[in-house]
């Protein structure tokens, strides 16, 4: 099941996001490993948003909990540790001047995936840290 980590901008109505107003700013495919880790570490929350303005908030949406700065820092650290592991994996497929190209293709694809995830989290952390209109949505 392909899922994405998406930086989504919402209009709020009484602090509650409105689905119909949402706009995806940036997204990356989210590896299951990341989502499972976020859930195990209670960094994944379910909030209820309004389908349209004036309606009851009854649409559940999974988001990365950003109520405290340390939560985003924690997930960013996890992604960066994984990236370092990916680089080490890629390096292990280089022996002298010999490259194992098929393995490297796979390593670089995985590396690219996690780099894109890092971009999304960094943008939230650095540009929209205390912005309640912008959520990190998983879906």
């Amino acid at each position, binding site marked *: 099941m392909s899922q994405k980590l998406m930086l989504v901008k919402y209009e709020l109505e009484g602090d509650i996001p409105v689905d119909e107003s949402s706009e995806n700013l940036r*997204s990356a495919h989210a*590896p299951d490993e990341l989502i499972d880790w976020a*859930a195990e570490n209670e960094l994944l929350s379910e909030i209820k*948003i309004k389908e349209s303005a004036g309606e009851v908030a009854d649409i559940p949406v999974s988001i990365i909990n950003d109520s405290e700065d340390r939560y985003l820092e924690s997930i960013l650290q996890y992604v960066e540790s994984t990236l370092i592991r990916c680089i080490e994996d890629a390096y292990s497929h280089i022996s002298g001047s010999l490259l194992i190209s098929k393995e490297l293709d796979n390593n670089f694809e995985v590396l690219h995936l996690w780099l894109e995830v890092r971009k999304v989290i960094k943008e939230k952390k650095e540009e929209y840290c205390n912005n309640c209109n912008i959520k990190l949505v998983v*879906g």
Partner: protein
Amino acid sequence: MSKNSEKGRKGELAVTSILSNIGVHEPRIEVIRANTTTTPENGVDIALKCPHNLSSKLDEIVSTGKSDIALANSQIDVRVQVKNYQRPISKAVAQGFVDDISKNQHFAEHWGVGGTRLTKGAQEVLAKASEVAPVKWYTAPDFVKIQAQYPAVPFTDINCDDGQKS
């Protein structure tokens, strides 16, 4: 609650199973899964090679419970993305699905499967995407109707066109 990866694996395998059953009942349908269930491969969870009017037949089954549409000889490639969610598909999720169309232009149609229903925002996103590419979304209740039309056939009976064992 199941781990996300476990929900994803089950959802993809269940949809693969239903699509495979359709292929047992109907001609010229191939179900292709080149990746494991936990690999996000540019939004392609399952690929189908199927008659170009299969989605018209499935749409009719969803709206009326049955269909007499005869499937065409010409085949197309279809991208299928599965969302094993017990909740509505939001606008952001629908947009994420639509955004993957540009990376998968060799597919003639793009199908999303899952969720209890589409929010109004999600419906608008899919309607807009339909102007540039054939896009379908079958919710979980829609897929249950399709599943009911194509029940699993015992392995001993799969070669019978008339219901008799061969």
